[in-house]
């Protein structure tokens, strides 16, 4: 019980004191996860839209694989990328192992299926509403995809936020490809894992509280971007 009280006190002190180490860890977490989500949106949203709009053989199978990939275990992704980036691996020349870039790649792999699958389902829903009109206007395929992406933006924001939740929360992949190196690849979740293994449960929980608050703030900021008129109609 006293651990909980101590954790809150710790969290407040850590934030109030502007602890430099904490700031560095938070900034790296933001840099890694936001970069990964941005990349995942660039790849996943057009991919999801294409899957919803285009008709080609294997489309359903691809959608199924995408949906299943939302549950990719982070440690497996981390392990595969470790084996690829290792100096004994096929991508060793990139020199990415134990760098923030490797962590961004790992989280992009984890987040892209989430963004793509949620985008596909949102846009498939809009298709019923808009596609006949778009066809009647003789819009090209590219134009149809672009229009649907634009109209679906509240749902796409939700997809991006779901992806961000995944990126922010995962520890397994960044631990393996980043190595949790102090001042280099240590992020919030790996710092929490380290403090837990030191038995510093209150400090670990305090870091967890900071992470949750950060996540809340990002979500609030993202919701602030949402156009009000759409907020209600497509909030889910």
């Amino acid at each position, binding site marked *: 019980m006293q651990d909980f009280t101590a954790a809150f006190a710790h969290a407040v002190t850590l934030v109030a004191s502007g602890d430099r180490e904490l700031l560095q860890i938070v900034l790296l977490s933001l840099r890694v996860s936001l970069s990964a989500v941005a990349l995942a949106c660039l790849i996943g949203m057009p991919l999801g839209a294409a899957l919803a709009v285009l008709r080609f053989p294997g489309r359903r199978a691809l959608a199924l694989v995408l949906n299943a990939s939302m549950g990719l275990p982070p440690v497996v992704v981390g392990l595969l990328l470790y084996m690829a980036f*290792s100096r*004994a691996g096929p991508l*060793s020349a990139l020199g990415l192992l134990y760098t923030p870039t490797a962590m961004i790649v790992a989280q992009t792999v984890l987040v892209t299926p989430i963004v793509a699958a949620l985008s596909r389902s949102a846009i498939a829903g809009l298709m019923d509403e808009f596609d006949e009109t778009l066809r009647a206007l003789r819009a090209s395929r590219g134009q149809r995809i672009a229009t649907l992406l634009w109209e679906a933006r509240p749902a796409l924001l939700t997809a991006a936020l779901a992806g961000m939740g995944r990126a922010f929360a995962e520890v397994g992949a960044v631990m393996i490809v980043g190595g949790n190196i102090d001042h280099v690849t240590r992020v919030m979740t790996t710092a929490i894992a380290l403090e837990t293994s030191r038995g510093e449960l209150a400090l670990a929980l305090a870091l967890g509280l900071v992470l949750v608050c950060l996540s809340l703030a990002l979500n609030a900021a993202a919701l602030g971007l949402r156009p009000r008129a759409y907020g209600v109609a497509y909030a889910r």
Partner: protein
Amino acid sequence: MIRPLLALALLAAPAAVPAEAERLLIQSTTSTQNSGLYDEILPAFEAATGLDAQVVAVGTGQALKNAQNCDGDVLLTHARTAEEAFVAAGYGTERRDVMYNDFVLVGPAADPAGIAGADSAAAALAAIARARAPFASRGDDSGTHKAERALWRAASLEPADGSGRWYLETGSGMGATLNLAAARGAYALTDRATWLSFANRDGMAVLFEGDPALFNQYGLIPVSPDHCPGTNLAGAEALRDWLLSEEGRAAIASVTRDGTQLFFPNEAPN
């Protein structure tokens, strides 16, 4: 929506530019990191050599594997037999003793299996097995796990027979294993440094110590440039020489918890 995200990502980008100093990547066992040893001695090493020492702390088994894959310049681990095999296989140049401490058997302070008065570590483990008292094992091929298995062999016992009942293999680090032992009232074998720096002891105590079989030697191996052409051999040797120097040995000896020294530097060979 993508644009603000990108803008945020770019804003955060300059946050952690890696230092320009030459990097020395250390593949290490966890006890040296969890006990805070590196935090206390590496700044002095970096100041003395200008190297940027980066530590990846994993179990000894994984550290050896990572170094074999050339994903590290130097190894600091504690499993002599495996380390000598690593050098014999040509993955490392040579192995040096750098420091030591000892393993201790910890458990619930009430000591339900009565190991406190045992004659030897093997006898203590036999008492635990006889009582079927819960025992939390690393189960991860780490240096501590290898030491624990050697003790079971010395006791002519196969604890795996009790796996999942009283013998609990956590498959995770020393800290996680101690957290589990604290929660389940289980015994565990731990290196003394991790134990002394471990904050969540929660009713646990050191119950058996002092058997020479519990000696815990840490060794350093530079990764061989013949096996890994890109390795930072000069940096690895600088770390070895510094750890064995007057300054390095004094730094190791100065790290204490609750007034107890965590690691004891080995004598420098002539």
